[in-house]
C-alpha cells in the first residue's frame, strides 16, 4: 500500500529554457532526451549552442539509437556517459569551475532528477533553480529506514532491501538530501505478514 499526500513528494514543473543563462548543463536519460529535444526546439539555436547534455546511455538498445539521439539534440553538445553515476560525476566536474549564470536541468527518471539536484546542491545550487522534467519510468531509489541501505531501480512495493533483506513498503516520503524515497518494514505490525507485491512504479 502506498501512503500518499505526503508533502515531501516532489513535483517537477517541466523543462523550460532559461534564455538569460550564460551556459546550460542538462542531465538526461533516454526518455528524458525527448524532453530535452522539445526544450531545444522551443528555444533558439543560440540557447542550444550554450548547452551541454550529459546523456545516460545505458537504456539505449543499440549504439545507432544513441548516435541518432545525439544527432537529434544538435547543436547542443551531447556527451554520452555509461550510467547515472558517471553522468552525475561529469556534472560535478563542470560545476566545480562554473560561474553564476550556469543553469542546471534534469530530465528522465526520478533517481536521475534526484541525483542531479543532489549533486548540484553540493555546489550551492538551490534545488528550486534546477529545472526538472519527469519522463519515462517511475522507478524509484529507496532507502531502507532500518539499515540505511539503498536499493535502486525499484518498481514494486513491498520490495526486498538489497542491503539487509527486509521487505520494505515504499512510501512517498522523499528525502532531497539522499535523493531517495523511504522504505519501511512491510511486516512491522504482524511479523511475517507481508502484503502482496504490486508493481507500482513501472
Amino acid at each position, binding site marked *: 500500500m502506498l501512503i500518499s499526500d505526503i508533502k515531501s513528494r516532489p513535483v517537477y514543473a517541466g523543462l523550460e529554457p*532559461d534564455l*538569460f*543563462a*550564460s551556459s546550460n548543463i542538462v542531465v538526461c536519460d533516454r526518455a528524458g532526451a525527448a524532453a530535452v529535444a522539445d526544450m531545444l526546439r522551443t528555444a533558439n539555436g543560440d540557447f542550444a549552442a550554450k548547452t551541454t547534455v550529459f546523456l545516460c546511455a545505458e537504456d539505449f538498445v543499440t549504439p545507432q539509437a544513441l548516435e541518432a539521439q545525439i544527432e537529434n539534440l544538435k547543436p547542443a553538445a551531447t556527451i554520452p556517459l555509461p550510467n547515472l553515476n558517471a553522468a552525475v560525476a561529469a556534472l560535478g566536474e563542470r*560545476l566545480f569551475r*562554473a*560561474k*553564476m*549564470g*550556469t*543553469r542546471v536541468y534534469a530530465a528522465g527518471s526520478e533517481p536521475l532528477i534526484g541525483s542531479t539536484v543532489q549533486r548540484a*546542491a553540493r*555546489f*550551492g*545550487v*538551490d534545488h*528550486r*533553480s534546477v529545472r526538472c522534467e519527469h519522463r519515462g519510468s517511475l522507478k524509484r531509489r529507496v532507502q531502507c529506514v532500518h539499515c540505511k541501505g539503498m536499493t535502486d531501480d525499484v518498481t514494486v512495493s513491498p520490495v526486498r532491501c538489497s542491503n539487509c533483506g527486509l521487505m520494505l513498503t515504499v512510501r512517498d516520503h522523499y528525502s532531497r538530501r539522499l535523493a531517495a524515497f523511504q522504505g519501511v518494514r512491510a511486516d512491522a505490525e504482524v511479523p511475517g505478514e507481508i502484503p502482496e507485491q504490486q508493481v507500482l512504479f513501472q
Partner: protein
Amino acid sequence: MTAFALRRVRVAEVERVADEVKRFRLVDASGAALPVFSAGSHVLVTMHGANGHVWKNPYSLISAPDDGSGYEISVLRLASSRGGSAFMHDGVQPGTELHISEPVNLFPIARQGHKHILVAGGIGITPFLAMMQELAALNANFELHYKVRGLGRAPFCDRLLADYGSRVHLYRSDLGQAFPLESVLSEQPLGTHMYVCGPAAMINWALQVGRAVGWPQENLHSERFTAPPPGRSFTVKLARSRRDIVVGPQQSILEALEQHGIDAQYLCRGGACGQCETRVVACDGALQHNDHYLTDEEKKSGEKIMICVSRAAGSTLTLDL
C-alpha cells in the same frame, strides 16, 4: 498583528551618523535582555506624536544579532515623510520611551549559499550592517557593494571600511563613480547569492541585472518597505462586520481600521510580507496597489489588496472584513 507582544524600550543613545541620518540605541525599559535576532530582521517602532498621531514604522536592526544588551536602528529623515522619520529625528532623545515589536526577518541570509554579494544604496545599508557581522562571525565569503551620494551623505562608511577593509566597495556618485554591477555579478562562482536594499529604482535595476546575467531568481533577494503613500480620502465598507470607515488622505487603510479599534493582520506594514492581504468584495474605482507582494496578475485581477500600503481611487471600497 495583534499577536505581537509590544516591548517598551528606552532610547539609550542618539548619534548623528550622516546628513539627515541618526543612529538610535534601544534598551529594554525594565532592564531585561532583548532576544537575539537573525541578521536581516527589522522591528516595528511605534511612535506617538502630538494630537494622537501614531506611526508604526519598520526599521532594520543594525546591531550585532547575538547582542541582547540593546538593539540599534538607523533612521533617515525623509523629506516626503508622513512624519514618522521626522518624529524620530526631532522628538526622540536619550531617555525617550518607545514601543517595538519582536524582530521579524523578511530578508534572511541564504545559509546554504557559498558566497554573498550585498548591494546597498544610501540608507539601504541598514540590514547589511547586521548581516555583515553575522557573515563575518560565520567566516563566510561576502562583499559589500555600496552606492553613496557622497561621504557626508552615506552613513557608516568609515566604520565599514575599518571593519571589513577590501570586502567593501564604495561607489560615490558625487565623483561620478559608476556601479559596475553587471561585471561584479558576471564573475561570481556558483552558489553566490545577491541581496539588494536601497531606493526602489535601484532594487529593480539590480534584480534586472541579476536576471540578465543569468542568475536564477532563487539567488536574488531584495527588501523594500514602502511608506504608505497619501492620496484621496475614501470609505472602506467592511462586508462582514457591516461598518463604514473613512480613510483619511494621510492614512493607510490599516491605520484607519486601527484608529477605529479594528484589529487587522499585519507584519511589516510596508507592502513586503503579505500578512495583511485582504479580499476585495467591491470597489467603485481603480485599486492603487503600492505593495511588492502581489504578482502583476493578482494586482490586475482586483480581487486582493494589501491594506498596509494600498488605496482605492474611487469613493468606496468594500472589503471582506
